[in-house]
């Protein structure tokens, strides 16, 4: 027990940390960042540099200029792969942004007691690791096996060859990607919404904002940067689509092409045709597209500006 109980306790004024403490913190900071930088260098920057080197050379290391880019660009599989991924991205990004925001806003506007339950429920499909959840979807899609065959019969789909027709694929992959990936984003958006101070919400309510106005005019603008962040990352993952078409290709005995997406084409070139330089060129194409879109979004949304 404190002997000073009952006496006014002197308020301890906050002191700036001593030199030793500051240096310690700095060291800890460097340590954390250093680990990240080391891994980034090893598994991000060096492979990217190597891909750049490969894409500009011929087998054996001779300078090739842009030949690898031109050759792969003229390959008969190149344009279809990029078309596929463009349609898929369009479908997926729209579905992702609309549904994630809708569900996150619903969750945030919901009854406080039920929020953790629904947050968990929405997150759950995403907790299943990537390829395992795609396997689950293979069963869901195959009409003779699917528990949802009555839904598929509404669309006159009675066999897997009909389900995985080329026109359906962007939607099929978007549905799979949404259920395997959106849960995490709903939780992130929910976290972002929770950061909005109660005072802001209360003042809006006092000013007469209804639930829609609150969501669209107050909450959404405040989490805009999180949405941009989601779109940048989702665009990058979307352009690199690989597991979904590969597994569906196996399950459909090849009805979905082995080079449906650019990433699959790069893999096929590297590992079946031993054309590492061509594969690297396609990887660099993807990198450039992703960087351009990310840069556009970052500058347009003033992503790194601190208010």
């Amino acid at each position, binding site marked *: 027990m404190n002997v000073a109980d009952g006496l006014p306790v002197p308020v301890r004024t906050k002191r700036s940390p001593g030199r030793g403490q500051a240096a310690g913190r700095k060291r800890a900071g460097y340590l954390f960042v250093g680990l990240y930088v080391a891994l980034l260098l090893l598994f991000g920057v060096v492979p990217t540099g190597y891909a750049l080197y490969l894409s500009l050379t011929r*087998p054996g290391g001779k300078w090739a200029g842009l030949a690898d880019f031109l050759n792969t660009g003229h390959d008969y*599989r190149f344009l279809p792969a990029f078309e596929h991924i463009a349609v898929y991205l369009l479908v997926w990004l729209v579905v992702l942004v609309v549904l994630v925001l809708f569900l996150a806003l619903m969750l945030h506007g919901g009854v406080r007691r039920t929020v953790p339950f629904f947050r968990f429920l929405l997150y759950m499909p995403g907790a299943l690791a990537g390829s395992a959840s795609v396997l689950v979807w293979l069963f869901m899609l195959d009409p003779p*096996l699917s528990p949802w065959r009555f839904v598929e019969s509404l669309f006159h789909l009675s066999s897997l*060859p009909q389900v995985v027709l080329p026109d359906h694929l962007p939607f099929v992959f978007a549905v799979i990607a949404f259920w395997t990936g959106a849960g995490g984003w709903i939780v992130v958006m929910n976290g972002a919404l929770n950061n909005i101070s109660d005072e802001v919400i209360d003042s809006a309510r006092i000013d007469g904002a209804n639930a829609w106005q609150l969501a669209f005019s107050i909450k959404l603008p405040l989490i805009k940067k999180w949405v941009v962040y989601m779109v940048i990352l989702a665009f990058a993952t979307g352009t690199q689509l690989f597991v979904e078409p590969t597994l569906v290709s196996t399950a459909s*005995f*090849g009805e979905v092409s*082995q080079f449906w997406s650019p990433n699959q084409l790069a893999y*096929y070139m590297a590992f*079946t045709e*031993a054309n590492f330089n061509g594969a690297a060129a396609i990887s660099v194409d993807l990198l450039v597209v992703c960087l351009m879109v990310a840069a556009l979004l970052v500058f347009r949304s003033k992503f790194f500006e601190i208010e």
Partner: protein
Amino acid sequence: MAAAAGLALCLGAVAGTGISSATTRASSSSSGKLTIWTDSARLPMVKLYAKDHPKVKVDIVTFDGGANGDGSVESKIALFNRVGHGWPDIIFSEEANDVQRLAAPQFDNFASVLNKGLVSTSVLKNYATGALAPCMVGGKLECLRNDMAFDVLWVNVPLMKKWGYSVPQTWQQWQAIGMGVAKNHPGYIVGTAGDSFDDSIYLQAAQCPVNDLINSYTLLDDPSSPNCTRMGKLLDPLVADKSLPVVYSLASTFGKQYASKTLMLIGPAWYSGAIFEGSGSEFNSPKGTWAAYPPLAWGSPSAKAWTGDVGGGLWIMSSHAADPKLAASAMTWLATSTPSQNLSQGYPGYVPAAKSWVAQQDAGHFFASPLAPTFSKAVGEVWPGFAESPWDAYGLWAANALPNLASGASFSSQIGVIGTQLSNAAQSAGFQVVTKP
């Protein structure tokens, strides 16, 4: 290539294990060290080799065998070539076109040339006609065939008798039965049209020249040839009336839907284990239900019948093998010796081994009539004009023609589609494409 063929081969029944003592004694004196890569279906053969050759230190590595054209053989070789070491001495590949793929310059002559002294001509001449065609790269033999995968007519004998049909000998008779079945027994089928290898089952049998490698740099691709269009016209009514449905015959759902609704199937020899016999097969049919009949002829029963083939595994030897003689003798033992081939899951390409193998199969009396007469006839009837090529002819059919068939297009209309795809693939691989021989 051989999409799904590998898968099916894995499902096949494993035959007995009689060991011929003469072969054992002759070969077990060799010694040295070998690394052999095999898929799980061929593992018993490699294990038997190791057991039979105690002086040879065998390092067995199991891999997927390159199943369904996933390129695992090529990917590993390409990486070993980059680092300059690590190659295995012998590889079993499930993909009948792997040697053609490995012939591309970037693989740096990985496969050993066998017909320049490594394997004796006395061995090679015992192979079935055309069995070594997938191994030939411009006159050089670069692999040994393990098993053959010719197509035959599979018939549900009791059902055929019950409905009063006689077993067809020509494509036209088969078509007539198909149309009759659609009319009188709707829901029953006389074959399927939803597989990646249908270009081989139907177009190869019709001698349709869409994937004919006339030399090592030229593809003959003429989808408008009368040989192609005649098969399209024959199949169109059957696809339309659903007696030839667009379903995958190797999907787990095929048996569930069609085990009791199939009158006939046209397909490879390995359907025996993949579709009909045993608990791992699609149908798991009762004994005495199915029988194999010879490939269908065109027009008249007396016309020369040609058929397609779907896969068949290859033994490939590395040109980097430290002891080429030992590796060649081991590979010859695996591919041709009776003890090894008795364990094969498909009809051996090596004729003396095939006789023993098929006798073993027939000893079980599972099929309504012995397989031997049909198989020994069909093995020589594979049309050589549908080549194993560096590109995946099955994958291209599956990805481009099959979706259209599934959405209601006619078979005829897809022959041009596959023609264009094969032409694109050949040009992309550096081949020239011609439409007339």
